[in-house]
């Protein structure tokens, strides 16, 4: 039984932001992300070690979360939020993280902007293929 279903933010019709990101990753990192999502999908309550809320700075009060994984010494983050519906998580942008800095540097702002677009139905989503 799956507890969670993942969705990807669509930049434009036919341009899946998360798929573009995962395609750009080294294959071991891509494999890590897919394996992690498959486990999170069947994990009712996520552990802070794997998924945590962004609480400070521009993310404060925006309900943005980050899925965390590391491969070959690089810390990767997939930012997203709970929703649109119960049991769903929408992935907004992928990035790397080093010494409290995200790359791209505007990853959090982009995530907030995309979350707003999804919630106001100005931005599209499609189911993430695990």
């Amino acid at each position, binding site marked *: 039984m*799956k507890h969670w279903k993942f969705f990807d933010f669509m930049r434009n019709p036919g341009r899946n932001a998360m798929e573009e990101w995962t395609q750009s990753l080294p294959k071991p990192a891509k494999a890590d992300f897919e*394996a992690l999502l498959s*486990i999170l999908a069947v994990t*009712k309550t996520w552990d802070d*070690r794997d998924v945590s809320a962004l609480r400070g700075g521009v993310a404060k009060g925006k309900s943005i979360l980050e899925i965390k994984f590391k491969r070959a010494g690089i810390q990767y983050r997939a930012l997203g939020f709970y929703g649109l519906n119960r049991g769903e998580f929408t992935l907004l942008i992928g990035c790397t993280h080093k010494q409290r800095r995200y790359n791209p540097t505007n990853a959090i702002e982009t995530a907030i902007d995309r979350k707003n677009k999804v919630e106001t139905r100005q931005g599209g989503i499609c189911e993430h293929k695990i």
Partner: protein
Amino acid sequence: MSIKSDLIERLKDKEFRHAYLAARIQKDIPFQIRALRKKLGWSQKELAEKAGMKQSRISLLENPNHEKGYQTETLRRIAAVFDVALIVRLGPFSEVVDWTENLSPESFTIPSFEEEPFLATVKVSPQSLEHEAEFDWATTILEAEARIDDAPSAMTSYPTARAA
């Protein structure tokens, strides 16, 4: 396309499929250890004491980002503490596909030997052990399966447990 066919398509890339296998090992083991420990209500320290390890080692074993891999002997000791099987063998990728396809919460909270209804219901008499060659295992297994027809569905999630 289904989850299964999507994954199969991606596994056609050799570099990706071996990376995926590594990722599965790296992620599945920590989540299994965490889930089993939590099921028993143990802290990392308690598990460490039972396994004769340091708490910091349990912390590493539960870290899906720990990239140094696992020693089979370490995992065997952890498996023994939980009284579950450790299945290490070479196998076809179709098993990896099936494992991923059939992942469920129960994939992580593996039943201990005593919790497996199938094993618990098989009765072996001393006489049958003396004449093991003549013992009708097939009939015994079928009878046991018949007895657990109405049992919870836990067994269906653990095809490898039956083979172990």
